[in-house]
């Protein structure tokens, strides 16, 4: 068999007119032989071509809303799919209230999330792939909340007459509050239960005030409760799901979170000593509700997650002068967000990694400290980690108090086991990932109660979906026939080379959010550490956004294959080439397209039988391709994508 050399391959596929499209035939032979085979005059002398079939890529279906949605990396990564670039542009235009409302529609708690969100959008942000750091998406959200004007009048309110359906929400965390916000305006009569004195769930009881001021929390919980149609039952622990179901609710939503902190019950010394050993989340709640206002000077915090970070930083504010974080895992593998670790370090808190707790050391019934075994991380072929003792002598750290912050668990002691609501072997309810329904038709789950501890934005996203399900359920509709997202694609063309968005790509590096001084924050546990961007910094940071929602839309019929777009593209996104299988195509574009999570935009065949292939990965959305295109085959079009909320008719 004759193999294909690159030259031959090109000769075959580019120079000769080959039938294009799916399952295109590729003829293999020497170029001259192939030339003769294909040339009009000298058809097929002694050449018998070998014919292979290649599965070419189908033209991209840009009518599928998910295609362009995926290009907006931040929005796609946001569990609630907040239209990030849309609100960032509004901030740049100083339209803070509008920016706030775009957020509020999607994520219900812009002021809270703008301070505390886990920000899955930021690691996804395209900007982080073309320079050092992503756009400060989260802190820009806070700007919208800080600088907004009056917004209550723009919020929905419950109709005068309800729809006659009654819903119980158990727990008043972000998940339940989101369900309430989505259903109350539709006329549902809502009963909201929580054992705590006020709404907010862990946002109130666990997230410390120096990260989230109480006023911000109260304001945004207040917006939800202000819609009307929601009766709150605080300081009311729900003891029985059975009773709840029997009191005639049309549906029950369980948003009770993951309320139990893990302990180190098996560790020597733990049984003997109760005082001065605390469970992280319980201790934080006690601080939040003013039951605890001091701690010893020497504090050990066990754990490397965000709870540990909040515990150590809170300790510094309650009298801890020598606070250590002791973690089993290596520094790089700690679960806490990098910015939380940074903030803890900034407050002079050292980290001791690869230390495995071995025993609580006590004397005369009093805690003295803890013993740790030094371990090293080893990885097997699969990259699975194990921690093996190094054999070095154990380490002793003195301590007045120890805070155990090594994880949270779910617990549903109030759900009777004989109701038909099934749990798995780990005690987690069986919850449908799309509908958030349980095995009991009337009962829905969301937030940490559904799939274990996550974060606020996930709780919100799941609350929205559960609300959609509850609404469908109460209307007797199929829970899987869910409403489509609301999308809109509009050209940004204003003139021949003018766009209605700011297409300039600035080179500014990420701006830092100013902090209050340590002397102020460490002496007052309620003093917010971050001061937030002022309007000027906010504008500059907003300008770093690449407007990934302004899509490059290609019309193959218009293209004359002049190459102008491919030539001008700063990041070499565009290639005109013969079609092929995806892996093959990715390898021979103008720049390597090795990030498989980023799609290739493939056109239908052009006049030369080639296709346009755009790697979406590092497109700057600068609009230059469209500016340099003589035929407007490229256009810049703003794509708005809003996840459907409860009450949106299905398939409009």
């Amino acid at each position: 068999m004759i193999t294909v050399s690159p030259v031959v391959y090109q000769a075959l596929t580019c120079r000769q007119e080959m039938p294009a499209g799916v399952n295109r035939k590729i003829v293999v032979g020497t170029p001259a032989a192939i030339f003769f085979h294909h040339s009009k005059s000298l058809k097929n002398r002694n050449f018998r071509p070998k014919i292979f079939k290649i599965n070419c890529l189908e033209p991209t279906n840009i009518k599928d809303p998910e295609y362009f949605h995926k290009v907006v990396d931040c929005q796609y990564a946001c569990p609630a799919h907040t239209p990030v670039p849309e609100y960032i542009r509004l901030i740049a235009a100083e339209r803070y209230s509008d920016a706030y409302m775009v957020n509020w529609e999607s994520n219900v708690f812009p002021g809270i999330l703008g301070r505390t969100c886990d920000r899955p959008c930021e690691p996804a942000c395209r900007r982080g792939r073309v320079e050092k750091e992503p756009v400060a998406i989260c802190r820009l959200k806070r700007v919208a909340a800080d600088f907004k004007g009056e917004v209550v009048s723009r919020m929905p309110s419950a109709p005068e007459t309800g729809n006659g359906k009654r819903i119980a929400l158990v727990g008043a965390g972000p998940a339940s509050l989101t369900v309430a916000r989505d259903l109350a305006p539709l006329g549902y009569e809502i009963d909201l239960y929580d054992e705590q004195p006020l709404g907010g769930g862990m946002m109130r009881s666990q997230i410390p005030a120096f990260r989230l001021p109480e006023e911000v929390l109260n304001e945004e919980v207040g917006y939800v409760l202000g819609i009307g149609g929601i009766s709150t039952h605080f300081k009311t622990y729900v003891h029985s799901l059975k009773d709840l179901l029997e009191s005639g609710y049309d549906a029950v939503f369980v948003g009770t979170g993951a309320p139990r902190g893990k302990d180190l019950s098996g560790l020597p010394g733990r049984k003997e000593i109760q005082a001065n050993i605390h469970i992280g989340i319980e201790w934080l709640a006690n601080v939040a509700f003013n039951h605890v206002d001091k701690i010893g000077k020497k504090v050990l915090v066990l754990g490397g997650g965000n709870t540990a970070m909040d515990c150590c930083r809170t300790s510094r504010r309650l009298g801890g002068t020598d606070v250590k974080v002791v973690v089993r895992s290596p520094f790089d593998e700690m679960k806490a967000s990098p910015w939380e670790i940074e903030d803890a370090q900034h407050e002079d808190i050292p980290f001791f990694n690869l230390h495995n707790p071995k025993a609580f050391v006590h004397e005369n019934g009093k805690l003295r400290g803890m013993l740790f075994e030094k371990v090293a991380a080893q990885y097997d072929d699969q990259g699975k980690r194990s921690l093996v003792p190094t054999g070095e002598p154990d380490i002793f750290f003195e301590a007045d108090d120890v805070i155990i912050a090594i994880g949270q668990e779910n617990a549903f002691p109030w759900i009777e086991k004989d109701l038909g609501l099934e749990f798995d072997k780990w005690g987690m309810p069986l919850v449908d990932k799309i509908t958030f329904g349980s095995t009991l038709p009337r009962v829905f789950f969301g937030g940490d109660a559904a799939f274990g501890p996550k974060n606020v934005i996930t709780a919100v996203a799941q609350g929205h979906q559960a609300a959609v399900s509850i609404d469908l359920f109460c209307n007797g509709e199929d829970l899987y026939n869910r409403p489509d997202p609301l999308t809109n694609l509009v050209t940004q063309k204003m003139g021949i080379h003018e766009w209605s968005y700011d297409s300039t790509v600035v080179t500014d590096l990420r701006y830092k959010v100013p902090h209050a001084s340590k002397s102020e924050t460490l002496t007052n546990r309620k003093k917010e550490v971050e001061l937030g961007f002022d309007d000027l910094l906010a504008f500059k940071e907003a300008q770093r956004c690449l407007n990934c929602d302004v899509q490059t839309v290609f019309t193959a019929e218009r293209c004359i294959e002049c190459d102008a777009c491919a030539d001008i593209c700063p990041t070499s996104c565009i290639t005109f080439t013969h079609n092929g299988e995806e892996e093959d195509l990715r390898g021979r574009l103008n720049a390597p397209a090795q990030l498989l999570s980023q799609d290739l935009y493939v056109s239908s065949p052009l006049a030369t039988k080639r296709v346009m292939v755009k790697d979406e990965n590092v497109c700057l959305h600068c609009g230059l391709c469209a500016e340099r295109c003589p035929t407007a085959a490229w256009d810049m079009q703003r794509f708005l994508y809003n996840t459907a909320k409860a009450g949106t008719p299905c398939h409009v």
Partner: protein
Amino acid sequence: MTYVKPAFRHPEAAKNKLGYTRKEYEGALSTLCAGCGHDSISAAIVQGIFELSIPPHRVAKLSGIGCSSKTPTYFLGNSHGFNSVHGRMPSVATGAYLANKDLIYLGVSGDGDSASIGMGQFVHAIRRNLNMVYIVMNNGCYGLTKGQDSATADPGSINKSGHTNLFETIDMAGMALELGASFVARSFSGDKEQLIPLIKAAVSFPGFAFIDVISPCVTFNNNKGSTKSYDYVRDHLETVAELDFVPLAEEITSDIASGESGRITMHDGTYLQINKLALDWDPTDRISSLTKIHRSRMNQEVVTGLLYYEAERKNLHDILNTVDTPLNALEYYELCPGNSVLQTINAELR
């Protein structure tokens, strides 16, 4: 309207042997009409010089007047440049080349600039065999002055205003061959796979290397009836050979049957791998090449590729037998050795 190209490039953008990315070879953002063939040629020049790993300061760009002659602003922004008057680029190139033979000279011109006002200059640059690359961005019209027919417009070709060209055409590649040029090629701005290796070969070639690049003017000469439009050229392309420029010590083994392929070794050991597609033509035979050009024209085909190649021709400095050191690097006393030396020379001539 964007006036400055964004600073960011692909994070995995290829680097050449000098560690540079293509960015170091780019120029200012083009102000030519969107879709102009000239911009594609600029991009091919950027790519070619980048791939050859030539330090940008080793290159001098020279041009005349026209849209084509404006392009040096849009490529090789870190190189030397001289934008001369209409049709006079060859004279400036001759002077520069005489003064400093160590630079790589890249002349860029248009069909108006070279085939009309600058014709007299063009022919003498060939005749003298300057060591330079001479690219004509050939759109069959005077783009800059709004699209009047040029001397390379084909008889019968219709321009945008509906006017049919009544005059004979000048085939610049044929003329270069006739005048003794030793590297003659034709290409198409819309075929970078051919154009880039041609540019690389021309830059590496130690004499006058001429490339006539058909380059559609989207605004004034891309209409139906024009023989320099994207559609027409694509429909009538005839390629004499596939060309691969093989840099030194990067030999690739190819499994192409012998007989159809040829290898042209350059003075520095790099070589051109030519895979012939047209069998009625020999790239080292001037007469065969001329015949090929004429026959293709008769058949209304736009013949492209490296049409003619001759390694052993003396360039201007060889002919003049100048010293190895570039003249501009000589000291004053070396260039003007004074009266006594003059007297000696005069005495020898008596």
